[in-house]
């Protein structure tokens, strides 16, 4: 593990994050632009997941639930009542907050595996409920969002506005994480993750700290869910709330570096394009792309168990030192 609060030399990472919006403009076609949108979106989502699970060292393998709440809330409000997804996004956030308060209030005190299992259980229950309550959610058929481009509908013909939207989402989540790292909440949360009893003895109200972070994480994930729905324009329970989606949050965060503000972003910048490109180019043999992706993941986790970010930071620091040294001469 690395020092989690090393937010001092983040300048290079900020530059990467801010500059990444240029990339979609240089991509040749919609296929590659689509990959860019998904990369930004998953970067934001993984950072949201990391806000609780990464800093507090407690894996939630059920964040697809909040992705689903965000997606379904805005979509159902839009399709049934014509309410703008921008407002639907806030509604989804509010519902996620309530759900996270109830779920977190009851499960956050569970330790280790039991917490992990409870998060999976909640996501699965929500998925089954969405499938069975056909009257509201159209069940397993899913919901189509009619194509009516416009800012207020959060629907555009081109991929570029989506790239902007997902990029802004990612930047906002990053800002929140970086701000939190330098606050009482961040310090308390990391301390609880390291050693709950020792943190309590230093005046940290651990259950309150965890609950606040958990709710923040759920709400931010839910915002991403709305964007996801408006981008794909079709949602159905088994794809939105799949266990695979839940696991993707974790894969990206671990690959980049758990418990660091920029780790999940780095993870998504690396893994999301790789996974999409493999799917595109290795389609001749079915299943081959997941096999290759698996090998890549294993390699990363074997050689960089702390994630890629710490290595990246060392590399940048080396470069900065070098350039300073040459200037000095």
């Amino acid at each position, binding site marked *: *593990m*690395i*020092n*989690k*609060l090393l937010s001092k030399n983040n300048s290079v990472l900020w530059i990467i994050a801010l500059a990444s919006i240029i990339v979609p403009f240089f991509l040749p076609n919609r296929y590659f632009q689509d990959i860019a949108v998904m990369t930004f979106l998953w970067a934001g989502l993984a950072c949201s997941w990391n806000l609780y699970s990464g800093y507090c060292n407690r894996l939630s393998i059920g964040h697809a639930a909040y992705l689903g709440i965000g997606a379904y809330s805005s979509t159902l409000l839009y399709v049934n009542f014509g309410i703008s997804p921008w407002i639907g996004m806030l509604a989804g956030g509010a519902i996620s907050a309530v759900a996270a308060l109830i779920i977190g209030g009851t499960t956050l005190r569970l330790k280790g595996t039991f917490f992990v299992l409870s998060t999976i259980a909640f996501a699965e229950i929500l998925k089954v409920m969405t499938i069975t309550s056909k009257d509201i959610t159209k069940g397993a058929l899913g919901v189509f969002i009619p194509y009516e481009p416009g800012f207020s509908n959060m629907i555009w013909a081109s991929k570029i506005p989506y790239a902007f939207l997902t990029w802004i989402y990612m930047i906002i989540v990053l800002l929140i994480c970086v701000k939190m790292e*330098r*606050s*009482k909440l961040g*310090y*308390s949360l*990391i*301390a609880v993750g*390291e*050693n709950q*009893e*020792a*943190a*309590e*003895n*230093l*005046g*940290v*109200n*651990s259950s309150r700290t965890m609950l606040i972070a958990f709710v923040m994480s759920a709400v931010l994930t839910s915002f991403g869910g709305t964007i996801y729905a408006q981008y794909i324009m079709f949602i159905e329970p088994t794809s939105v709330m799949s266990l695979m989606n839940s696991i993707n949050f974790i894969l990206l965060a671990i690959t980049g570096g758990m*418990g660091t503000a920029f780790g999940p972003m780095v993870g998504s910048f690396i893994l999301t394009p790789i996974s999409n490109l493999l799917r595109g180019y290795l389609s001749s043999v079915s299943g081959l792309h997941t096999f290759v992706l698996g090998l890549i993941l294993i390699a990363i986790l074997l050689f960089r168990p702390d994630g890629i970010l710490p290595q990246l930071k060392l590399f940048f620091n080396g470069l900065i030192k070098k350039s300073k040294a040459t200037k000095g001469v």
Partner: protein
Amino acid sequence: MLLKIDSVTKKFGGLSAVSDVSFELEEGKILGLIGPNGAGKTTLFNCINGTLPITEGTITFNGEQISGKKSYQIARLGIARSYQVTQPFGNMTTLQNAMVGAFCKTKSYNEAESIGLNALKTVQLDHKAEIVAKHLNLGERKKLEIAKALSTQPKLLLLDEVMAGLTSTEVQDMVKIIREINATGITIIIIEHIMEAIMSLSERIIVLNFGKKIMEGTPDEVSNDQRVIEAYFGVDEGDEEYA
């Protein structure tokens, strides 16, 4: 009276780890707590700071009853402790470790940083401020334990074997640090097995054995007391036969 322990009992099932212990502590003093292994010293600390709920009795701190409160509430009221087995937040730097406690009295990052740094200076660990805590050696970890506790700006400090495993120079160092902390007005209860250190530091000493208070007095009185010697070395029943 800063702290008043009134017939406190802590039972684990049928076993009384602490039974019917009472004492009072004035502000600004150093109180030693000694006794053989398993006498209930650490358990008593756990009861005072709320880690363990007590079975019977009451604990009053600064005129307020604290038994029954949670440990984070008690920490905020002004009781801090260090652990016998050090509990650093391994992936945070030394300074960040201290800042966690500092946030219990302030919300400002800069203020927390200066409180944390001050605590590190007190224990002479400020030169290691940017080192990740898991890379510290035992002596430094023990100091960090104290710094973390100090950063909560306590009125009462509970020190649990902060000198165990240290070299004799380190012990002298630590004794000096504890004196300095006490000189700033912080009351201290200290558990220690190194007799020289605890005898020179404490104004009064309480001896626990099998969870009971068997003796309270000045260091001189305690070291000459027959019951204390028996508790530590056992009753020599065979003496006469072999004489």
